[in-house]
């Protein structure tokens, strides 16, 4: 009796372990085939990251919209994380109120070029009132005005091989997003906030806004963006400064 029980137990244990392991294996294989592998997929934490990134992409879908609020919901307190850049390049464009500032756009595009602030303000503008949360736990609601990233990408002609857009600011907080977020209607290049020009401490003259991810994805003080088919070419290959400092690349959670 005991022997049959333990043999049955052994078989059942083996089967459950095999089913569990092949379940994770199959999920990761499926994720790989559908481009649902984040750049920081290495190691044990990478297994969790890949499952989270793939599951959120599949469950929430590429087209889901972040909730939008009304003017009366705008937060009275909007904390600021960190001072503006103190690099020579930033101080020079700040000196003449960003008249000489340009956004450089290059990489896998048909027509690489630069944009002045006046160029960007000339395109159809969009305003959204959305929630932004810091990974630390605090959050606020603000109104953002700017041009959709998809509009700028249309102008320069993105190559079909493109997989990510990489953003370089005047400071060290470079970041990247996948094409699903780059083309998302709520992904903005914001030059205005709460009805006025983007304040210095919130990223003047131009910041990124990615409504469906945590605040650290919405980097400030943009200088250049580049379209690429391989995120591993940049920095340590993890897709941004945050993953290099130990924070996950995917900031949807």
């Amino acid at each position, binding site marked *: 009796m005991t022997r049959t029980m333990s043999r049955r137990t052994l078989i059942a244990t083996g089967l459950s372990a095999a089913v569990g392991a092949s379940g994770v294996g199959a999920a990761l294989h499926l994720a790989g085939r559908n481009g649902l592998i984040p750049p920081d997929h290495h190691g044990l934490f990478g297994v969790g990251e890949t499952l989270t990134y793939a599951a*959120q992409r599949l469950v*929430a879908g590429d087209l*889901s*919209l972040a*909730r939008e609020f009304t003017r009366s919901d705008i937060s009275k307190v909007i904390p600021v994380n960190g001072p503006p850049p103190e690099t020579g390049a930033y101080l020079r464009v700040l000196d003449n109120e960003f008249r000489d500032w340009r956004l450089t756009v290059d990489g896998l595009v048909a027509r690489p070029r630069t944009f002045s602030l006046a160029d960007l303000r000339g395109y159809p503008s969009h305003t959204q009132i959305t929630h932004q949360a810091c990974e630390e*736990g605090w959050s*606020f*609601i603000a109104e953002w005005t700017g041009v959709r990233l998809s509009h700028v990408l249309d102008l320069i002609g993105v190559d079909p091989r493109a997989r990510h857009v990489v953003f370089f600011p005047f400071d060290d907080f470079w970041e990247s997003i996948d094409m699903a977020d780059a083309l998302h209607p709520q992904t903005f290049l914001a030059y205005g906030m709460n009805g006025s020009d983007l304040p210095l401490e919130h990223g003047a003259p131009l910041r990124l806004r990615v409504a469906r991810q945590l605040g650290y994805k919405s980097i400030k003080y943009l200088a250049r963006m580049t379209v690429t088919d391989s995120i591993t070419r940049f920095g340590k290959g993890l897709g941004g400064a945050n993953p290099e400092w130990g924070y996950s690349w995917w900031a949807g959670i």
Partner: protein
Amino acid sequence: MPRHGLVVRITHWLNALGTTALIVSGIAILLAHPRLYWGETGAVGGPSLIDLPIPFVFGHSGWGRYLHFLAAWVSVASGALYLVSGLATRHFSRDIVPSRSDLRSANLRRVIGDHLRLRVSELGSRDSYNALQRLTYASVVFLVGPVVLLSGLAFSPMLASGSPWLVGMFGGQQSARTIHFFAAAAVVLFLLAHILMVSLTGFTTRVRSMILGGRSHIAEGS
């Protein structure tokens, strides 16, 4: 017939691993902002619901977040397996959900009295769970666990976009964070009581039977 079924034993230890990692990493994340709010938003400089009496400690939420979400997958996977198997094998209706006689006030008074007076021999000798155990396990499995999971998902900006009802049911993303904290605190309290009772009623025997299955007294008698 073993005291604990195979799936119960496997998922118990997987969940023990996942929950321990969730608590440790949850504390690491909380330390970056030990302030709780109500509603949709909240930040330093604005009103809080509760200022927890612990300091702001930065620099641990990176690994904390990586570990938290990895451990959540372990607990969610083992929890799902446990639920399916618990329904299929009638483990819930047989062992977990309190019966009508369990809930009679005389019985409840007696069981609560046994616990308060720590009548270990009385508590440890029974083969099936008593009313207080059933009530506790049932609330952890069917109420606290799901609330922890759903409130955690509700303050993900991506899932709040795909499933806004998640945020709606908690009354805002900061409310969800606050509820997540209190539900997690309830899990910690449960674990303390659980480990205390296991220790009082024979730690080695009970841990061994949760690993190897153990023997039920009824099976021995029959």
